[in-house]
């Protein structure tokens, strides 16, 4: 069975990406792998979903009837590496991420998880705009 990997972020953009990922999984008859990890190297990581966020997401996903697994927790690697890693391990045919608008300067300073995924992926990447 093929797989679709979702790089999840707990906000509107992430939910939009989740919706798109579910649609893609349905269409392809694939299973869904949800990835949300943090390096826990800062006090506040807004991209990291807490347990409440995750159970809400799981409830939504259960309603869709898609077969899914969740990778959630702290990790030594960056979020981008974890998403790519999950895609590799599950031989995913598609990675779905949310992509928000960023100024060039902001991207230079902060780096970009999305960019690393786009450049590093071996399969197609669907970048969802909220």
């Amino acid at each position, binding site marked *: 069975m093929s797989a679709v990997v979702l790089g999840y972020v707990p906000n509107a953009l992430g939910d939009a990406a989740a919706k798109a990922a579910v649609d893609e999984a349905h269409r392809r008859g694939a299973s869904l792998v949800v990835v949300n990890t*943090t*390096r*826990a*190297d*800062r*006090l*506040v*990581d*807004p991209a*990291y979903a*807490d347990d409440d966020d995750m159970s809400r997401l799981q409830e939504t996903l259960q309603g869709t009837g898609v077969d899914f697994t969740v990778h959630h*927790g*702290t990790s030594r690697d960056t979020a981008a590496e974890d998403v790519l890693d999950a895609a590799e391990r599950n031989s995913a045919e598609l990675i779905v991420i949310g992509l928000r608008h960023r100024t060039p300067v902001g991207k230079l300073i902060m780096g970009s998880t999305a960019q690393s995924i786009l450049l590093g992926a071996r399969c197609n990447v669907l970048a969802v705009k909220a």
Partner: protein
Amino acid sequence: MDNFLALLEGFSVAMQPMYLLYALGGVLVGTAVGVLPGIGPAMTVALLMPITYSLDPTAAIIVFAGIYYGGMYGGSTTSILLNTPGESASIVTALEGNKMAKAGRGAAALATAAIGSFIAGTVATVLLSFVAPFVAEFAVQIGPTEYVALMIVAFLTVGALLGASVLRGLASLALGLFIALIGVDALTAQQRYTFGNPFLADGIDVVLVAVALFAVGEALYVASRLRHGPVKVIPVAGRWTSWMRKEDWKRSWKPWLRGTFIGFPVGTIPAGGADVATFLSYASERKLAKGERKKQFGKGAIEGVAGPESANNAAAAGVLVPLLTLGIPTTATAAMMLVAFQRYNIQPGPLLFEVEGALVWALIASLYVGNLMLLVLNLPLVGIWVKILQIPRPYLYSGILVFAAMGAFSVNFTPVDVFVLLVVGVLGFFMRRYGYPIAPMVVGLILGPIFEDQLRRSLAISQGDPVALVSTPIAATIYVILIVIFVLSFWLKKRQQAMESEVVEEAPLAVADRKEG
């Protein structure tokens, strides 16, 4: 009336656009470091000491005062929204404030903390304006014997009362006194503990030691046990349109005023700084609350945020009284501000108001201004302050190290000083590891030379008879007060422990959360 005119004069200086900018910069940096974990106002003032090379004294002191006040505001933000008190004086705020935030009342908690801080800061600054000159007038008359007594009070309260272990606090103090001895004796020009080394003959710079202990020691210690736990996400507070309800105002204004009048005197006497003041305020609010409100304590009572936050800021102003009038710092940040004065060859003490009147009154005026800025800045910008918590720790501590290295190098522009920084930093690491407080060492280092000078003078007057040190009426009174402070503080510590265990019983979560933070 004279003082009032002098204060107006001070305002005319502090309101100059350039100085307003410096004050703004100071309060912004101060709030940021108050919010950030791992950096406190004392470390920041130490790290920014290089600015004393190029700014005029008024500008530098205004910046440091802004950092000092701003740090107090910033600490409350994290303790309410994240339950991680940015500094020890905010621990009590975390008890009630975080509960309020969890119940969706975070905006009200932030508002009562900020407004309370503003009111307390302003009232306490007014008190400072009138009390300080009075104390200074009195202090001009006291001689070396009384000075020795006052400094012993400062040593023992900072060394023995502030930390958890009396012996470790005193050991830290003694280490500071020892390092201060290295160099040339001011009275006889003899080299002491230099071991023939020309670098040691100049003495070890206070800033170097302070930066090493505060910044390098902290960075190494954090690196040794870097937290990799799951991240706590902020319970985001609501819109600012409904900061405080009518009832919140009603319940807050009395705690604000009570906190102010508890905090200021506690800050003035060297009896433990702002932590004691916040605890006293919390305890009294809890005692005064009736009926339903009493039950709210431990579950998010607004009085438990309003009172301690006010006490905290009032104490911060109180600490400036002994600093400016006697030259005695009672907290780590005050000690660093004393160093800043010394950089300009200004010695805070009884004569400060006469000799450097313009500077002091500009400083006091800038405190009023800074307070107002902090109120205006803090509420709308709370989102930005929370954003800086997203800085990854590796960058934060690497940045601290780079700043520390720069501060050390710029002391004499020689890499040898950076090496001393490293050595003392490693010492600071082990001190933290084994539970030795840092502040007493810095206070000992700064006051040590002054203390020795006054001690030798008073013994010279008495022909070497040590009894003379306790025989003047004022000195004797000071020693009696010292004993009273000690008895009181041990009683307070007992009370604090009792209350903490009580809170544990009533609301086990509150303290469990706090330990996590």
